[in-house]
């Protein structure tokens, strides 16, 4: 540096001032494109699904078929195992509610089958059971009192 030159600070350009915002912009743009692709262009196709994942209306049809089969065959064990597949929180309540809906819709046969299965499940649950746990009384043990000898 000689006498004629002097040090000057160059103000940062507009592009440098912007910092790394362009990375965030790119990320947001990418997420939007990715979501558009995964929801509309190439959405998830489910395969090998479980009855518990069915839509409510499809579950209702499945449940009413189970109830009709029970009404026809009387096989409660099989009906119970099938109902477990739908994974209703309270199957008796769900069957009863669906029976009421069927009755309101004028489908008496379906309402009867659903109510019959609900009733059978209710009575199988409330049947008296022999208690299996019994209180076992254990005699207390006492140690012989020791006597001190002089």
């Amino acid at each position, binding site marked *: 540096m000689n006498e004629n030159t002097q040090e000057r600070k160059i103000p940062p350009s507009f*592009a440098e001032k912007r910092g790394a915002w*362009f*990375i*965030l*912009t*790119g*990320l*947001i*743009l*990418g*997420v*939007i*494109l*990715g*979501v*558009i*692709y*995964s*929801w509309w262009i190439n*959405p*998830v*196709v*489910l*395969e*090998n*699904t*479980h*009855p518990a*994942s*069915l*839509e409510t209306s*499809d579950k209702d*049809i*499945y449940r009413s*078929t*189970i109830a*009709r*089969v029970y009404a*026809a*065959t009387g096989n409660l064990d099989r009906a119970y195992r*099938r109902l477990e*597949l739908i994974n209703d929180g309270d199957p008796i309540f769900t069957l009863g509610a669906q029976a009421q809906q069927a009755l309101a819709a004028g489908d008496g046969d379906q309402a009867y089958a659903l109510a019959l299965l609900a009733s059978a499940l209710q009575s199988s649950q409330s049947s008296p059971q022999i208690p299996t746990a019994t209180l076992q009384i254990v005699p207390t043990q006492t140690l012989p009192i020791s006597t001190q000898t002089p």
Partner: protein
Amino acid sequence: MQHHQLRYLFFAIAILVGIAAGIFLGWKIIPARNVHSEPHTLRIDYKTDYVLMVSELFQQDSDFDMALARLIYLGESPPEEKLLSAIQYADENAYEYRDLQMMLSLFSSIQNSSPTKD
């Protein structure tokens, strides 16, 4: 590499990372909460059990049209196809003889009712 070229490169990388994150979000996280399956996507053993239920009802009421209507629940494919795959699965997995017979009975009824193709 010039400064603005580097910016373009990082911008492109950010978009790619964002797309990957968006696809993960759309396929794994959000559908897992909201997506419900349809009956035609049920696993073969559940489909077989449903076909068995339809066969049990058919044996009781002999209502052929109703049995066909019930089989539509499993999708638009021909009922013979659904029954055949169910019978095949039941046979391979040692279902009870009576259950197999009920499904075979419905299958033969459908075959007899369909027009012959010559």
